[in-house]
C-alpha cells in the first residue's frame, strides 16, 4: 500500500504539486489523469524518487521512503521514452536491474528471459533497442521494470509514443500484465479514454491538486465538478435554476430530482450527450430547439441543437443504414429529453467551467 501525506512540490514560486493526500491499495491499477502541467508527472516522479518533495511524506507498505534515492525504493518505472539503454541488447537491458543488485550473470539472464517471455519477446533478447518497433520497445521497458518484482510499477504516459492502433492493443496487454503479475500499477496519462479503459481507480488532478478520485464508472457518472465532467468524457453544459416544479432552463422546465441543486439560485447543469434522447418536434418535459449542425462519426452522430440562446449536443447511435436516413435535418425542430437521473449539477453559475 502506498500512502502520500501532504505531498507538496514547489519549484521556486511555482507550485507543482499542492498538498496531495493519496492512498493506493495493493494490487490496484491507479491512473493519475489530468491535462499537461497539472502536476501528475511530478507526483509520479516524486513516488519514483526523481524529485524531492518540498513537504510531505511518501510511504510504501508503512515504510517512509520520502528521502530514499530511486535506487533504494521498491518501485520501478516505465519511462515515457522507455529509456532503453541504447548500448545494451534487449536481454542485457532487462537483466540490468538484477545485475546491478549483484545477481549472478546467468541467473539474471534467466530471469530476464522469463520477463521477456511474459511480454512475448523471448526471441528478441539479442536484438538492440534500435532494431525494435515502438510497441516492442514498450514491452521491453515493461519487462525491465517488472523483472525486479517491485512493489509498485510506475508508468509515465506509457502509450503516448505509440500510434492509435498499437495503443489499444497495448492497453489490453497492460491490463493482462497487471492481472498476471498482481503488482500495484500507477499510471500517468492525459488521455481520459485510456484512463477509463484501464484503471481500477482514477485520480483526476488539476493545478497540482487532486480534484476527484473514484472508480471509472463513478467518475463518469458522478463527476465531482464541471472540470471533471468536461475532462472525462463529453458533457453538454447549460445554465438553469431549480424551482419547485423542476429544472428551469431556456424558459422551459424539465423534470429533475428535487435535491439536484439548491432552489432559487442560478446554477450550472449538464448531461452526457449519449445518455439522452432526441425526439422530433416539440415534446413535453424536454428542451426544445432547432437542429444546428450534424457531425457524422461513423458509429455515432453528434447533433448540435440551438435551444434558446444556448447550444446543446446529443449523440445518436448509428446502428444500421436505415438509422442514417432517419437523422434529423438542420433547422428541424427537435426536443432533447433528459432522464432525471442523468442530470448533473455543478454549483453556482458563476463558477467557470472547463
Amino acid at each position: 500500500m502506498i500512502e502520500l501525506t501532504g505531498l507538496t512540490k514547489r519549484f521556486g514560486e511555482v507550485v507543482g504539486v499542492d498538498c496531495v493526500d493519496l492512498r493506493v491499495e495493493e494490487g490496484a491499477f491507479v491512473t493519475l489523469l489530468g491535462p499537461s502541467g497539472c502536476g501528475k508527472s511530478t507526483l509520479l516522479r516524486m513516488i519514483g524518487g526523481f524529485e524531492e518533495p518540498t513537504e510531505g511524506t511518501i510511504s510504501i507498505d508503512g515504510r517512509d521512503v520520502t528521502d530514499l534515492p530511486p535506487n533504494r525504493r521498491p518501485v520501478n518505472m516505465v519511462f515515457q521514452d522507455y529509456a532503453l539503454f541504447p548500448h545494451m541488447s534487449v536481454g542485457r537491458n532487462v537483466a540490468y536491474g538484477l545485475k546491478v543488485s549483484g545477481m549472478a550473470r546467468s541467473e539474471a539472464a534467466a530471469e530476464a528471459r522469463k520477463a521477456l517471455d511474459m511480454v512475448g519477446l523471448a526471441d528478441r533478447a539479442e536484438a538492440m533497442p534500435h532494431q525494435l518497433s515502438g510497441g516492442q520497445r514498450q514491452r521491453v521497458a515493461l519487462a525491465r521494470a517488472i523483472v525486479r518484482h517491485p512493489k509498485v510499477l510506475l508508468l509515465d504516459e506509457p502509450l503516448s509514443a505509440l500510434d492509435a492502433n498499437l495503443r489499444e492493443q497495448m492497453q489490453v496487454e497492460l491490463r493482462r500484465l497487471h492481472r498476471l503479475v498482481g503488482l500495484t500499477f500507477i499510471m500517468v496519462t492525459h488521455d481520459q479514454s485510456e484512463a477509463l479503459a484501464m484503471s481500477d481507480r482514477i485520480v483526476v488532478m488539476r493545478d497540482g491538486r487532486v480534484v476527484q478520485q473514484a472508480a471509472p464508472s463513478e467518475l463518469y457518472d458522478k463527476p465531482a465538478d464541471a472540470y471533471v465532467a468536461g475532462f472525462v468524457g463529453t458533457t453538454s453544459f447549460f445554465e438553469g435554476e431549480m424551482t419547485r416544479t423542476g429544472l428551469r432552463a431556456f424558459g422551459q422546465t424539465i423534470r429533475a430530482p428535487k435535491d439536484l441543486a439548491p432552489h432559487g439560485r442560478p446554477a450550472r447543469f449538464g448531461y452526457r450527450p449519449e445518455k439522452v434522447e432526441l425526439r422530433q418536434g416539440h415534446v413535453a418535459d424536454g428542451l426544445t430547439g432547432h437542429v444546428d449542425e450534424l457531425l457524422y462519426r461513423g458509429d455515432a452522430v453528434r447533433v448540435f441543437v440551438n435551444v434558446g440562446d444556448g447550444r446543446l449536443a446529443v449523440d445518436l447511435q448509428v446502428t444500421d443504414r436505415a438509422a442514417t436516413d432517419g437523422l434529423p435535418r438542420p433547422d428541424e425542430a427537435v426536443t432533447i429529453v433528459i432522464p432525471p437521473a442523468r442530470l448533473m449539477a455543478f454549483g453556482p453559475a458563476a463558477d467557470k467551467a472547463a
Partner: protein
Amino acid sequence: MSLAEPLPEARLRARRWTAMRRYLVLSPPLLWTVVFMFVPYLTLVVYSVWRAEFPLAVPDFQFGNYVTIFTDPQYRNVFLRTLKIASLVSLCALLLAFPYAYFLVFRVRSPGWRLALYMAVVAPLWVSYLLRAYTWKTILGTNGILNSFLISAGLIDEPLTVLLYNQAAMVLTLTYVFIPFMVMPIYAALEKIPPSLHEASADLGEGHLSTFFKVTLPLAMPGVIAGFTMTFCLSFGDFIAPMLVGGPDGQMIAGVIATQFGAALNWPLGSALALTMLVFILVLISASDRLERVGQGRLA
C-alpha cells in the same frame, strides 16, 4: 506537514547523504577551478598593483603600472599594432574560409567528399603549430624556397626581401595557422541553413547574388562572428609568430608581456598588461556572444 516540524533523524541522514554525493561529483572540478583558475587570476590582480623591485616585486597598493600602460606611448603603439594585425588576420582568414565553407555546404554533393574536404582544413590543427609557422620562414626567406623557385623559373632576377621579417609575413603566417578556427563555425552555421530557404528565395525570383546577400549571409553571421572572434583572440594573444617571421616592427602585446616576465623582470607591469588584455578579450567575447545570439534569433 509544516516545515517547522523537525524531520526524523533517519530522514535527515538520508538527505545529507544525497547532498554529499552531489558535492562528491562537484568538488574535484570546483576545487580545481578555484585553485588553478580563480586564484591565479587573483594573484595576477595582486601582482598588478604591487611594485616591481628586484628580485621580483614588493607588496604595495598603487595603480602605477596601469598608469604606465595607459600613458606610455610604447604600450599604446603595441596595442594598436596587435589590434591591427589580429584584425587583418581575421579578415584574411574570413576571406579564405567563407568561400571554402560555402563551397563545401552548397556545392559539394557527395557526403564523402564533403567530409574529406572538411577534414582537409581541420587536420592541420593536429600538426604542430610551431612547425607550421616555422615552415613559412623557410619558404619566404631571401634565399628561401619561394625566392629560389621564382628565380629558377626566371620570373625574378633578384630575391624579394619584402616577403619575410615584416608584418605581412606575420599576417600570412597567423592566417595560415588559425584558418581552421574560422572554417569550423562558418561551416556549422551554413550547414544549419535549411535548403528550403534557398529554394524559396529562388522561387521568389531572387538571383544568386541577392539570395546570397539576403538569405545566406545573414544566416551565416553567427558562424562568421564566432570564427572571427576566435581567430582574433588567438592571433591577438600570439607571441611566437612575431619572433619567427616578424621584423623589427613586429612586437605584439603578448611578446611585451613575455618580456616583462622575462628580460625586463617586471612582473607587476606584466601582470597589469595581461589583465588589461584579459579584460579587452572578455569584453570582445561577450560582445560577440551577444551579436551571435541576435544572429541566431533570426533563424528561429
